[in-house]
């Protein structure tokens, strides 16, 4: 394989020199909207969109400038300022990997911003929503653009904060407040892994910079590299909702729908994949324990997410399950080393388009159906929302890997590479694709086909233009992007300076065994879904379902497991501590005070008020004193 090229210090001006503007624009937008508050209510959403678009323009210009450089020059480090003297400098790394992410984040992010103008038009807090969206984009950009782990970590935490604020945006709903807290707490577990990994890096190499770390990682002992790799994986699991830290993602649907799109498509969950790919030096060589762990986590999550997606009646939760599953594919790809990186990133980008498309489509459906999310109350919507229907169908075809659409190329690339490297994981991914075919078809049939099962006051209508235009743009990306990136290895060659590439470039097979098996399984899944939900009538009330259905409905008992393994013991621990505090520490203090109080209460009874009693005690005292003096004198 070929390793990444050296990072060169950026000297000349140009757009790359001011690439910090990418982060500064949305950050400024968030600051203005939050500081000026209600004064900006009237035009706040426009400012938010403008800042996001400005950031996108800078990203495009930087991308063009990077394209103009030779491959050896395509890793430009831009030094900004000394952050922690002697420890970390704040700088940006503009290379094919980071700029690809920046384009996705700002591009899809801007479309979501525009869509939100329409979606949130009736919300009195729309301005606050846009300030958080801007903050989210700024934090995510810092995460992917920073040239060291400290900067990455600041962005990482910023993303955590922004997701907390947005998931809990309707915090007057207890369920939203709880979901936000859950996302925050689960993410802390992942952050713990990332932080400890960074500590080990620092103590072993004395640097946080990507450039120096990739040089020094090779000279570290294997157990130490494995430890760092596994800890980084824990961090990635937290942000990317991979097993065993997946539980927050499904609850995160409590936020407004554009937030779900932003979290699932452009930002947040992609951070884990980015971390693994960026830290390639610690997941080297492919097939090492930590790289295998990444692939196994990915394969397990892609199956778990798909199974969960099969049983959800809430359209957003169904999509959330599919996100888990698709991120699982990316992780699987990222665990295969440079051969899989390009496919993982490619799937990440195309997934960003088709998942944003479908989430915004789901939001459009909800918008027309009085915020109803239960698919059992949908049905036959294709005639009433033609644009939403067509764009959703395109996203659907892309995600199940319909030939020649985006998802087909990227997902198939991951599956084929996985089968080459590890038969078991590869074929699990094939099965996962079949399940995807089932649950996504189920979603389509329940929502757009069949009989009307609407609530009585539902008057479905197509959404305004400001919401449908982003859908159309995203669906165009969902059609063509995958083929463009994967055929003739455009993405792999483009990313090679940043992440390396295998010596031999893969060729895309349209009729490989795993590819055909995938298509066959997807077809079987889709037909089965049509038999159960297209041809047959969908009951308006959720049937009880088999053991397996309940298993999936309860998110594979992930919450129950967390509750019994961590929450209950934690509560016992606090109860024991409270008991010890009340009875032990408070007991000693209170007992001492009560003892002294009681004793003095009894002692004061000596104070009778009778002068003659006092006289007697004085006399006795004097007599005793005299006696004692006599005694001492005699000795």
């Amino acid at each position, binding site marked *: 394989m070929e390793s990444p090229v050296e990072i060169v210090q950026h000297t000349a001006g140009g757009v790359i020199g001011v690439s910090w503007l990418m982060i500064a624009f949305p950050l400024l937008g968030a600051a203005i909207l939050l500081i000026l508050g209600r004064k900006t209510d009237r035009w706040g959403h426009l400012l938010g969109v403008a800042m996001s678009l400005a950031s996108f323009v800078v990203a495009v210009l930087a991308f063009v400038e990077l394209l103009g450089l030779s491959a050896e020059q395509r890793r430009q480090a831009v030094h900004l300022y000394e952050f922690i003297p002697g420890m970390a400098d704040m700088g940006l790394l503009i290379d094919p990997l980071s700029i690809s992410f920046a384009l996705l984040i700002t591009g899809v992010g801007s479309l979501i911003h525009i869509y939100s103008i329409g979606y949130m038009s009736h919300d009195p807090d729309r301005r606050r929503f846009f300030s958080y969206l801007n903050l989210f984009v700024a934090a995510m950009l810092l995460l992917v653009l920073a040239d060291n782990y400290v900067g990455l970590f600041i962005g990482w935490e910023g993303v955590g904060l922004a997701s907390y604020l947005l998931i809990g945006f309707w915090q007057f709903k207890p369920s939203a407040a709880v979901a936000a807290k859950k996302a925050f707490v689960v993410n802390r577990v992942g952050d713990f892994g990332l932080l400890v990994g960074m500590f080990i890096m620092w103590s072993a190499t004395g640097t946080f910079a990507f450039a120096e770390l990739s040089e020094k990682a090779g000279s570290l002992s294997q157990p130490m590299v494995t430890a760092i790799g596994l800890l980084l994986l824990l961090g990635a699991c937290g942000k990317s909702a991979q097993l065993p830290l997946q539980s927050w993602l499904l609850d995160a649907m409590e936020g407004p729908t554009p937030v779900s799109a932003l979290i699932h498509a452009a930002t947040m969950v992609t951070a884990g994949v980015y971390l693994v790919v960026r830290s390639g030096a610690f997941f080297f060589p492919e097939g090492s324990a930590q790289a295998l762990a990444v692939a196994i986590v990915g394969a397990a999550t892609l199956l778990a997410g798909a199974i969960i997606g099969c049983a959800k009646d809430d359209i957003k939760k169904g999509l959330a399950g599919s996100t888990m599953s698709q991120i699982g594919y990316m992780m699987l790809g990222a665990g295969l080393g440079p051969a899989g990186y390009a496919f993982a990133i490619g799937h990440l980008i195309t997934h960003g388009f088709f998942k944003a498309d479908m989430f915004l489509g789901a939001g459009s459906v909800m918008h027309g159906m009085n915020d109803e999310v239960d698919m059992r109350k949908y049905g036959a919507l294709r005639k009433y929302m033609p644009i939403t229907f067509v764009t959703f169908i395109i996203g659907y075809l892309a995600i199940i890997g319909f030939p020649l659409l985006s998802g087909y190329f990227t997902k198939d690339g991951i599956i084929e590479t996985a089968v080459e490297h590890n038969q078991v994981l590869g074929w699990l991914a094939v099965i996962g694709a079949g399940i995807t075919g089932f649950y996504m078809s189920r979603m389509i049939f329940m929502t757009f086909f069949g009989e009307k099962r609407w609530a009585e006051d539902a008057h479905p209508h197509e959404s305004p233009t400001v919401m449908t235009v982003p859908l159309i743009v995203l669906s165009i990306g969902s059609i063509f992007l995958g083929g463009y990136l994967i055929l003739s290895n455009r993405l792999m060659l483009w990313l090679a300076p940043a992440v390396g590439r295998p010596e031999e470039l893969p060729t895309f097979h349209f009729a490989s065994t795993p590819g055909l098996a995938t298509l066959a399984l997807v077809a079987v899944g889709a037909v089965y879904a049509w038999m159960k939900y297209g041809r047959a009538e969908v009951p308006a009330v959720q049937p009880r379902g088999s053991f397996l259905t309940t298993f999936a409905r309860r998110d594979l008992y992930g919450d129950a497991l967390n509750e019994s393994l961590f929450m209950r013991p934690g509560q016992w621990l606090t109860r024991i501590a409270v008991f010890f505090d009340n009875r032990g520490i408070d007991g000693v203090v209170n007992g001492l005070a009560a003892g002294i109080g009681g004793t003095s209460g009894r002692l004061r009874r000596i*104070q009778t*008020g*009778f002068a003659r009693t006092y006289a007697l005690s004085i006399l006795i005292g004097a007599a005793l004193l005299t006696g004692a003096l006599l005694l001492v004198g005699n000795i």
Partner: protein
Amino acid sequence: MTAHYLVLSGLLFAIGAMGVLIRRNAIVVFMCVELMLNACNLAFVTFARQNGNLEGQIIAFFVMVVAAAEVVVGLAIIVTIFRTRRSASVDDANLLKY
């Protein structure tokens, strides 16, 4: 030679002490206190005589001065208590307690 004076002094002190402890009338208690003071004076003077110096006599004068002052204050208190409560019993004036 001086032993008799000391015995007398001790007896007077004992009588005074018993009077303070046993009698209730404030005036009588007061007189018993005076008796104890004077018993002490007698002992001081006796010891001064026995040792052939004047220190005991000087102390006796101090005791008399203190006793005079005490009589002034004490009698005033007793008279005031009697006026307010129509009683000179030391056991009745027992409000200052726990």
